[in-house]
C-alpha cells in the first residue's frame, strides 16, 4: 500500500511537469490548430539558458525568471519570423517546418552546450523536506510551481482584457480583427506564453532527468498524451490530463510493463485516445466539415 501511495504521489509530481507541457501545446493548438512538435526542444533550450545563467553566478530564482523572459521572447520571435510565414501553407508543410525547428534547436543546443550530460540543481533542497516521507522536496516543489503557473495563467485569461482579447482572437480571428484586435500580436504573445510555460516544465524536469539535448523527448510525448487525454482544445483538461498521465505512467511502470518501456505507455494512451475518443475527456467533439 505504501508503494502504491508513493507511486501515485510521485506520479503527480512528474505529472505536474507533463501538465505544463500539455498546457503549452494546447495553447498553441487553440490559437493556430497546429501541434508544436518543437515544444520540447524549446523547453530544453530554455533550460540550458537557465543553466548557463546559474553557471555565470546568478542565484537560482533570478536565473529562473530571466529564463522565463528569454523564453517568452524566443516564442514570440519564432511565431513572428517563422511560423507566420506558413500561415496559409498546407498541414504537411507546416508539420515539416516544425520538425525542421525541432532539429535546429536540438543541434543548436548540442553545439553551444555540448552533448555531455549535465546536472541541474533543484531549488528545493533537502532541508525543506516537510516531514513528508512520501515525496522528495523537489517533487513537492514541482507541484507547487506548477499550480502557481496554472493559477497565474488562468487568472490572466479570465480576468485581464488582454487575456480576453487573446481568447477572442483564438476563437474567431475574423471577428477579432473587426473589433480592432491585432490578431498577429495575439498569436505572438500566445507563443511567448507557451514557450515560457514550457521553460518551467524544463527547469522542473532537469533535476530529475538531467540536462542533455535529448532530455525532453519522452516528456514531450507524455505532454502530447496528456493534451490528447484531456482534450486538445481544453487547456485545463490538458493540465488535468498531465497529472492523470503521470500517475498512470508510474503505476503502469511499476506494476504492468516495467520501468524500461514506460514510453510505450504514452504511445498506448495517444493511440488509444485517438481511436476511442479523439476529443479527449473534456474536449469538444471534433466535427469535420464536409
Amino acid at each position: 500500500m505504501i508503494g502504491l501511495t508513493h507511486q501515485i504521489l510521485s506520479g503527480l509530481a512528474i505529472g505536474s511537469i507533463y501538465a505544463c507541457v500539455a498546457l503549452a501545446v494546447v495553447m498553441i493548438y487553440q490559437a493556430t490548430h497546429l501541434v508544436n512538435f518543437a515544444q520540447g526542444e524549446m523547453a530544453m533550450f530554455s533550460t540550458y539558458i537557465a543553466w548557463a545563467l546559474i553557471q555565470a553566478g546568478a542565484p537560482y530564482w533570478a536565473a529562473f525568471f530571466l529564463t522565463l523572459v528569454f523564453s517568452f521572447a524566443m516564442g514570440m520571435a519564432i511565431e513572428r519570423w517563422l511560423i507566420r510565414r506558413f500561415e496559409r501553407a498546407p498541414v504537411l508543410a507546416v508539420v515539416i517546418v516544425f520538425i525542421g525547428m525541432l532539429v535546429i534547436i536540438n543541434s543548436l543546443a548540442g553545439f553551444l552546450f555540448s552533448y555531455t550530460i549535465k546536472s541541474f540543481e533543484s531549488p528545493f533542497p533537502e532541508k525543506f523536506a516537510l516531514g513528508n516521507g512520501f515525496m522528495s522536496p523537489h517533487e513537492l516543489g514541482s507541484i507547487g510551481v506548477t499550480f502557481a503557473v496554472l493559477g497565474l495563467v488562468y487568472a490572466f485569461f479570465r480576468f485581464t482584457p488582454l487575456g480576453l482579447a487573446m481568447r477572442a482572437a483564438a476563437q474567431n480571428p475574423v471577428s477579432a480583427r473587426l473589433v480592432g484586435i491585432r490578431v498577429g500580436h495575439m498569436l505572438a504573445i500566445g507563443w511567448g506564453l507557451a514557450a515560457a510555460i514550457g521553460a518551467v516544465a524544463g527547469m522542473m524536469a532537469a533535476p530529475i532527468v538531467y540536462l542533455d539535448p535529448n532530455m525532453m523527448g519522452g516528456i514531450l510525448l507524455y505532454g502530447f498524451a496528456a493534451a490528447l487525454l484531456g482534450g486538445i482544445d481544453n487547456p485545463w483538461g490538458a493540465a488535468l490530463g498531465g497529472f492523470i498521465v503521470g500517475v498512470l505512467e508510474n503505476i503502469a511502470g511499476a506494476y504492468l510493463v516495467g520501468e524500461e518501456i514506460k514510453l510505450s505507455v504514452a504511445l498506448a494512451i495517444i493511440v488509444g485516445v485517438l481511436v476511442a475518443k479523439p476529443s479527449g475527456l473534456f474536449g469538444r467533439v471534433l466535427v469535420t466539415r464536409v
Partner: protein
Amino acid sequence: MAAVLETQGLCAFYGATQVLHGVDLAVEAGGITALLGANGAGKTTLLRALSAMVRREGLIRFEGNALKAREAEDVARLGIAHVPDGRGTFLDLTVEQNLHLGAYTRRDRSAVASELERAFAYFPRLKERRSQQAGTLSGGEQQMLAISRALMLGPKLLMLDEPSFGLAPLVVKDIFNILRAINEEEGVSMLIVEQNANLALNLAGYAYLLETGSVVISGPSSAVRADESVRRVYLGY
C-alpha cells in the same frame, strides 16, 4: 452631400477572380445609405473590401482622407465598425464579454462604461442576458449583440451586412427601428447591405443597387423605389 466614406473605381478580387468592377459609392455623413442587390451581386464583398478583408484596388476616402489601412484591425481602429454577415459574435464568451471586446481599442474607461449602459438601454434583452453565453442567444438577440458590439467601438461609420437575415419580421422591425433611433440620436452614419429592398429603402435616405459587381442604379431612396425595374425585380410589384 458631405460623405463620411466614398469610393472611386473600387475593385475587389477573390484570388484571381474579380468580383467588383469599379464601384463609385458615397455614404452620407450622419445618414443611412442602403446597398441593395440579389445574391452574388457583390454586396458582402464590397463591405469586405472596405474592411480590407479582401484584395482591393481603387480609391477609398474616409472622412476626406485616403484610407490606406492594410489590415482589417486597422480599419476598425479608424472608426469603421463592420457587423459581418453571420453576425460574428464570439459564441463561447458572454454577452458582456462580447461587448467589452467591442470597446477593446478604446482608452476612455468611463465613456466605455456609459456606452455599455446605452447599449443596454437600446436593447434591454441584452441586459437581461448579460452573463449568458452568446451562443445560447436567439438569432434576433445575437443580431442585437452584434450591433451593440459594433457600437461599443464608438464608430463614425457603422456597416451592417444583411441584418435582417434569418430573423422573424417582428424582430427585424424592432431592430430597424432601433437602428433609426441610433442614427438620429447618436449621429452614427450607416451603410446597410440588404437583400430585403423594401426594408432598406424605408430606413435609408440614399440607395445603391448592385448587379454582378457594378452599380446599376443610385439615388435618393424615393427615386430608387419609384424606378420601374427596381419595382418589378426587387420590390415585387
